[in-house]
């Protein structure tokens, strides 16, 4: 739940920033001749750079929230736990060698 709230808030920020970025690009392309004739290129470039930086920062923040949950690490930990359980089951005679191979095959698949 907490994850969902955090991620949706960060994603919304990134999306808004992307919208602003595209709106700026659209406005610039539409009015490029006015910008050029008034020699406002530097100002426009600076403004656009600020937007792109902000968009990159927001996307990075969202990715960090996603990354904190480490799904691949959780998978590997559970894989190892299942592996250990399989070994114990084999040792106690509950699984045969063929069944161990099938079990590990299922885990890897």
């Amino acid at each position, binding site marked *: 739940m907490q994850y969902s709230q955090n991620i949706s808030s960060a994603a919304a920020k990134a999306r808004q920033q992307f919208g602003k*970025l*595209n709106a700026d*690009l*659209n406005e*610039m*392309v*539409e009015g*490029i*001749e006015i*910008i*050029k*004739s008034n*020699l406002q*290129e*530097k100002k*426009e*470039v600076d403004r*656009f*750079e600020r937007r*792109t*930086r902000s*968009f*990159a920062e927001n*996307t*990075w923040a969202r*990715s*960090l929230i996603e*990354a904190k949950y*480490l799904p*691949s*690490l959780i*998978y*590997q*930990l559970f*894989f*190892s736990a299942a*592996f*250990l359980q399989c*070994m114990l089951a*084999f*040792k106690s005679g509950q699984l045969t*060698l063929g069944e*161990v*191979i099938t079990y*590990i095959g299922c885990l890897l698949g």
Partner: protein
Amino acid sequence: MLMMEQNYGHINKEAGEARSIKINVVHAYAQMRKWDAFNKSCESAFSSLNIPYLSLVYEEDFAEDKKVKSKTFKYLEVEPIKLNDPLQRTNPYRLEELIENYDEMMDYLTKKNVLSGRVKPALFGEVLKRYMDKLGMSVGKKNYSMKSTIAWITKQLLRFPLLTLLFFLSVAASVYMQTLSSVYLGYFFETLKLGDDKGMLRAVLLVLVVLTSAALLQWISTLSVLNIRLKVEKNIRNEIFSAFLNKKHDYLNTARTGDLLSIGTNELRSISVMFQPGLIMSLRSILFYFIPLFFLFLRGTTGRNGSFLYCSLRYLRCC
């Protein structure tokens, strides 16, 4: 121009040694901006009145007599004829030789972002181009080496050397760990066959450690490539934007707004996909071919799978 202001006039080959001057960098920058604005307004006026014009850059075009003559005849739409007088630079020296505080000027221009293409340096064309080439960039249309996709990707990656190094190391290490987990899996089956309980437990623990490390390293590599992707995306976006602004009116009059927007959004997305997940997948695929080969090589030479430490030491010795 600045030399003439200091009463140095033209220098030609017969003049002997180059006479260098010390220039006021702030003044030079102001002059560059002034002339750049003048050139732009001329170009703009000619374009809006549909008057054809010929742009010549002294440092570039007048470097070769043939080049400038050919350009001029083509522009005038007349048959080339032989001219007695050469159209070449009267000044044979490079700006590095003529300007005492050349490095100071370059530093100043870099700080002022002239070298990132915001101001088109018409007067210092050739020198700036060389300087930008040194940095792997250029002032004109092309910002990076466009010889091949690999060259372009390499140039982009080299802009963030530490992140790139972290990315490559973490990918290599994670693939190494994943391959090692398969080795220990094999070791587990061996112990299973022999009924070696201690060995089995050790194999399971080793698989746990190796897989966890692989997952952590994979996480680091994904984050580092994501960071690279975002930075590259940001830079490309800015460069596309600057490129639009530097386009001539002729181009902007004919190009559709939708096409330009598409370049700045959709096509840029394709480039970022090439970095993530494209780059990481390509690298992992290549390494997944070579690293198991390395383990097979170890197996062939030592006749055993070996521990992680043993394999690493053996690998270092091989290198």
